Every structure is written in C-alpha cells, then in structure tokens.
C-alpha cells in the first residue's frame, strides 16, 4: 500500500477527525493513501460515509488499544 501520509487525529472529538482528514486529503494525489489514527468512536461511520460520498475509497480499518486506524485512497 502506498501510504503517502499518516494523520494523527487522536484525542479530538467529532467533527475534527473528519475536518482534518478532508484537509489532509486535499494535499494528496489521486491513488495515494492516507492513514488516519483517531480515538473518537464516531469516526468510523463518518469516514465511511464521507469517503463514499466524495469518491474516495476506504480500503481498510482496524482497532488497536482504543485507537481506530483507517486507510483511505484518494479517488
């Protein structure tokens, strides 16, 4: 996986993980992958819905000790 950037959105609540993700995504080129770390439990459903509606691809997600990880490929 071509991870272009890792975004730390831990410790901030909704809507910040998504606001930061959206901003970081703007700096990526199509096909590149953004890895996101978040602790807000609403991040999963919001990132999933957002990626879908904005043409990106949520490739994978994982949870590790209270930290949610997401990999989104820019569309």
């Amino acid at each position, binding site marked *: 996986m071509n991870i272009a950037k890792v975004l730390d959105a831990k410790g901030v*609540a*909704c*809507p*910040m993980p*998504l*606001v930061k993700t*959206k901003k970081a995504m703007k700096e990526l080129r199509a096909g590149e992958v953004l890895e996101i770390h978040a602790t807000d*439990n*609403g991040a999963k*459903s*919001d990132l*999933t*819905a*957002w990626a879908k*509606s*904005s043409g990106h691809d949520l490739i994978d997600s994982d949870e590790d000790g209270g930290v949610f990880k997401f990999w989104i490929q820019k569309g």
Partner: protein
Amino acid sequence: MAVEIIDSDALAKKIINKSDTFILDVRNTEEFEDWKIEGEHVQIMNEPYFNLLDDVSAIEEKISKNQEVIVVCAKGGSSQLVGELLDDAGFTNVFSLEGGMKAWSEHLEPVKIADLKGGGELFQFVRLGKGCLSYFISSEGEAAVIDPSRMIDVYQKFAEERNVQITHIIDTHLHADHISGGKSLADEVNGTYYLPPGDATDVTYRFEALEERSQIQVGSATVNVQPIYSPGHTPGSTSLIIDEAYLLTGDILFVASIGRPDLAGKADAWAVDLQETLFQRFIRLPEELLVLPAHYAFVKELKTGGEVSAPLGKLYEKNPGLQLEDEREFRRMLTENLPQQPNAYDKIRQTNMGKFVPDHQEKNDMELGPNRCAIHE
C-alpha cells in the same frame, strides 16, 4: 450573532407542547434513517455535516434565513460547527442541540398524570428519544419507581426535590430494548427491587418476586399496587393496578398497538399467552382503568403535554391489536408483522440479568436506535 445552545430539556418541552420545530440533522444518512427525533410538529431534514464544510449552499436554498433551525448531530460537536457555518452564511436563528442524539436518547421528561387518593402523586417519565415510559408514584414520604431507565439520578433528584424516599423499585418484565435502572436504583437507595420470577430464571442478583399475591404499599397503606400476571411479551410479564384506577401494562398493551411475543425467541408459545392476557384477563378488568404502558410507538400517541394514556375500554374499541379476537387471525397478525429486533437486544437482556456489565459508553451504544417493542399493522 452567535450560535445558541438548546438543551434536551428545552427541546423536549417544545416537542411535547407541539410547537413547530425545524431540525437539521447533520449525522450521516444511515444513522439518520435508523433513528431520529420525532414529534407531531417536527419537521426534519438530513444533510451530513461533511457536505456542508466547504459551503452551506446545499441547504441555503431549502431553509429561509430567519427561520428557527435546530442543528443536531451525534454528540453536539458537529452541530456546533455547522451552526457556526450557517451563522456565517447569514442565518439568524440557529441553535445547536447540546450533547446531540446521545443526550437526547438519555433525556427523561416528567409528566404529571394524577393526584392519588390520600395525597399521593403519579408521574410518567417520557423518554422521547426511545419511546420508553417509566413511572414514579409518591405517597406520604415514600416513592415507588416502575420500569426505571438506567438514568437513575433523574429519579433520585426528583425524589429529593419532593422530599420523598424511594423505597420500592419494580420492573414489570425483563426488558430487551433498554437497560433497566431497577437493580442499580434499588442498590443506591437501599430499596426493594421487584421482578417477576417467570422472567428471572437466569438473573445473577437477589430480588423480591413480583407476583399476584404480593401486595405492595407505598406510604402508610395509602397507595395500593396490585400485580396482575399478564404473560405474552415475556413469560413473566406482570401488570400493575395502582390506586384501583391506573393499569400499568408494561410491554403487553400499548395505546395504539400491542406487545411483541418474540424477543426471547418463543413467538409461538408466547403469542398464545398474549392472546389469553388480552382477551381473557384484561377484558374482565374495569373498563375505566387508565392504561399507562411502558412504551409508545407513534408520536401521535403523545397528548399535548406529553402524556401517553388511554382508558382500557377505549382501547378495546380502537387499538388495532385488540380487534382480532379470532385465534388464527390474531396469531397471523403477530407473526407476520414482527418488526426488526431492537438493536443489541440480546446484550441488553444479558445486562438486565446481571450477566454482562458494560461501561457507560457501551450502555449508550447498546441503546442507540429506535424502539421496536410493539406490533402494529
């Protein structure tokens, strides 16, 4: 101008008083469609917050700028942000719901039902976010709480304000749609916790059996609580006649629908029980008894002021679930109209048995979503 905050309490008052309310729900569409704020005079629109971050034009055309808009999200953070964006765009009457749907789900609205003989009072606590109803009966310094939600501090504060001591806590059945506050409230106030033994075969804690012969007195013998065995939603379901005038039906009989028999997996056997309860037991009770259920399914069941109730006799005329006395017809209606199981219902039952101990966040997540305890065509 800044975004104003509205709390659940103020929003609940608007809804029960049937004021016109416009809500902009900015959660993602899947969550919105599963569960949202409802009210007879509530108009609601969904636009996920992430579609509004760059510009709010998606809704600018649909809402007039001086209209009152209450923005709602999951926990209150995104609604605040969207509120600010709307404010920047020139909207002048924008509110953000404090604590979002999480707070809304936990809000309880006390509604006075009646004064009881001998100076007592009967209150119904309406949980608008879930459609759950619980009851508070006070009499001569003592109080009983029936089918309490897990927000037990609300009942404790209410008792303190009235200078009464909660002494009896009753669950009409083992709940599958919400986490009961019964046992924890009883522990907290050192009161007696009653549960029907038919539902308690697997519980891990001590309780007092709620049976027809167990007469419960609140205060010095002024308020009489008479249990009536009424199986069908669960094998133990027990209704209560309060002060010879009010019939607390639990999840057996609602105002516009009836209970469902399948939540612990025995739809067929319990449908028979339910039919017996409704057409052989309740029908013999005085028709002027005021039915006070543990749920409502439709916002139209809320009267202005929030009360959910109806005289028993009237329900036999109007409730669709009570019109099918024919055994086969009745069972067909029950089995063909079973709604989806409530979210996390099995985990909730395990919790209410004391077998599973979730933390606050888990409890909240388990209860999210609509209530689906009723059957209706």
